[in-house]
């Protein structure tokens, strides 16, 4: 009974990794089916198998229940037929695992990068130095011209950004199909501008992909170095627009009174 349970546990583990994970992924990102890379899959399955064996053979009774039927299957002269079947099944399984290891594959290496790396304390752009800890959007206080500034930011967005970040602000612009490693930021998602300060967004736009620290893989990001293409005013306006259009509020750094 325990033997079957153990095999069932391993099978369920495999199914969860093989189909459950991508299923959750496809639910979070409709249209995608993000499978676990083969190399990681092999590692996880080793843990599942070793773990299951350890748990089920933890005590003497469990050990006997697992090993007993196996010894019985191979040693009972009355079960020779089953013995041969099991022998063949185990051998084929082993050969298949071996084949999976040696067969030619073209799986891309796994590349890890930090999505929101820690910003530097200050950054130099437009010939000036900005302290990112205290920097604020100078246009936010100007309530009177808010609509006008936001609309002008929209013009900047549609003439520069929407090709990748999209008309729906979802990071699926019409050129995102080529600039997809990393994916362009999805501004509607609660995980991007909604949890960042305006100074962080200002730094990310202004210095672009090459301005990322090493953990952000600056060699991959196609985000242009916008301070070479836009003015400081245009960058603040487009930030205003991004929050206004998506309805998100920028994260505010807490100020200590006194």
């Amino acid at each position, binding site marked *: 009974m325990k033997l079957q349970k153990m095999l069932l546990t391993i099978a369920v583990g495999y199914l969860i990794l093989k189909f459950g994970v991508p299923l959750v992924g496809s639910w979070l990102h409709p249209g995608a089916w993000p499978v676990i890379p083969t190399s990681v899959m092999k590692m996880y399955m080793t843990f599942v198998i070793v773990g299951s064996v350890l748990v089920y053979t933890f005590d003497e009774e469990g050990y006997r229940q697992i090993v007993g039927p196996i010894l019985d299957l191979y040693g009972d002269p009355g079960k020779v037929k089953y013995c041969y079947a099991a022998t063949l099944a*185990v051998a084929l399984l082993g050969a298949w695992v071996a084949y999976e290891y*040696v067969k030619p594959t073209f799986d891309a290496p796994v590349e890890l990068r930090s999505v929101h790396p820690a910003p530097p304390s200050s950054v130099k752009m437009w010939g000036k130095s900005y302290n990112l800890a205290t920097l604020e959007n100078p246009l936010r206080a100007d309530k009177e011209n808010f609509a006008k500034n936001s609309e002008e930011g929209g013009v900047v967005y549609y003439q520069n950004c929407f090709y990748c970040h999209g008309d729906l602000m979802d990071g699926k612009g*019409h050129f995102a199909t080529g600039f997809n490693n990393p994916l362009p930021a999805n501004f509607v998602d609660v995980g991007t501008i909604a949890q960042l300060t305006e100074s962080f967004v200002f730094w990310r736009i202004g210095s672009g992909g090459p301005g990322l620290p090493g953990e952000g893989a600056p*060699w991959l990001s196609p985000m242009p170095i916008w301070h070479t293409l836009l003015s400081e005013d245009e960058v603040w306006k487009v930030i205003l627009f991004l929050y206004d259009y998506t309805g998100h509020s920028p994260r505010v750094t807490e100020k200590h009174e006194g």
Partner: protein
Amino acid sequence: MTTAQATKRTMGAALLLAVSLALALVPTAAEAAPGDTANGKVLYEKKCWWCHGKTGEADGPAANFVIPPPRDFSLGVYKYKGSEPKAEVVRDEDLFRMISDGMPGTSMPAWKSVLSDKDRWDLVAYIKTLTDMFEGTPNPAPIDLSGKIASSEESISLGAKAYEAAKCFECHGVRGKGDTIKKLKEDSGKRVWPRNLTKQWTFRAGSTVEDIYTRVTNGIPNTPMPSFYSEKTGEGKLSTEDRWHVANYIKSLEETQKAPKDGETVVKGMYVAELPKSEKDEIWNEATGVAFNLVPQIIAKERFFIPANDLIYVKAMFNEKEVAFLLEWDDRSKSVPGDPVAEGIAWDTLTPDGVAVQTSVVIPTAGEKPYFGHGDASHTVSMLYWTAGSVETGPKEMIMSANGIAAREPGDAKAAGFTTSASYEMGTWKVMMKRSLATANKEKETQFEAGRYIPIAFANWDGSNGESGSKHTMTTWVWLLLKPDTGSEVVVIPGVILILLVGGQLAMAALLRKKKS
């Protein structure tokens, strides 16, 4: 009847009533709702004007940066008409579908993911007020699709004949690659490229046989694509049957194996003892190709927004001495300056078609790579470049290295064993590049090694689209893996394991049985 039963019945009736009320209130996609133009205007002024303009005249801030250009609503003429052929206007359902599903291959997204059915019907109602074309015009009847002829070999071959008779090839090419022999523009005067019929995922309004039949029947208003419908068959027209045959034929031209697939990022380099002699060598058929999307260079000055070519299909082979790449892409014309046909259909100054392969000089062991755009100060990239040249000079190849966009230097092609051969046929360029695996200039040129993942990127110039210099299409980093010849080990290792496992288990069984007895 007990109280409990009565309560259950009342609840059941209430539920039934609520469901039927809810069903009655929800308009289905098939039937047009009148639409609230005031709400439509509010939505339009938040979401649509950026391309289509505040008054709908296609003059929004993004209008000049997108191709195809946004629709001008003041004209009231729409490209994708599902009405019966005689109708002058599109159906409300056509407008609703365009807003809901967007148009693949364009900057028009599918709004159904962010706007409710009601909002989208309100937008339909509003954009109809931006022109007088719809005034006093009832919603036309849909196109009649009842005569559909099922696809068969016979129908496809009749379709091929009709495709030729109706001269579809003049714009769409003999193989449907969109390699036009005409210079085509929309009524607005803007350039338009004929559809490549093999890439059906770029069809704007669906790629079912019914969709294709609808396009052939109604044409694409405002563009050079005519309607092939006529009550009497005549010059340049097709009978209903022939239009179904043509639709079946076009459907059969689809080439899905050359569509980019999600997550495919490795060029599969195959080992062969003897490398192909040219781009036409049949041995290339044995290699597996990978398709990559090409997007315009919009990252550094001078930025470029309106591409024509959209993908490149790559194969690679190698032996002990050399590596060979086969770069294949569909291109509407063979752009070689000085060629009269190419000059005739070029929009601006005709520039030569070209293609480039960029690789990292240092093969990375960890994550760190050169910047994908021509490397950076501390990481060099190597580039193999081919250009169609001109009628006088013929095609040329160049090997280069770079440490950033402004830091490029030429190399010695001969010393690196860099050779190319290329041909253009029926809408497709094939360029083969060959290079020695190892070269003398190790600081500036990639030393290709089997079994290593090498960062690789591609760039493409379409001369009839005026592309040159920084104005080109490209990919970012993908990988090249020259897969060492696995030979017999794929069979031998699992075989040995199989034998060992069978032997081991049988021995164990014998031992156990002996013990028992």
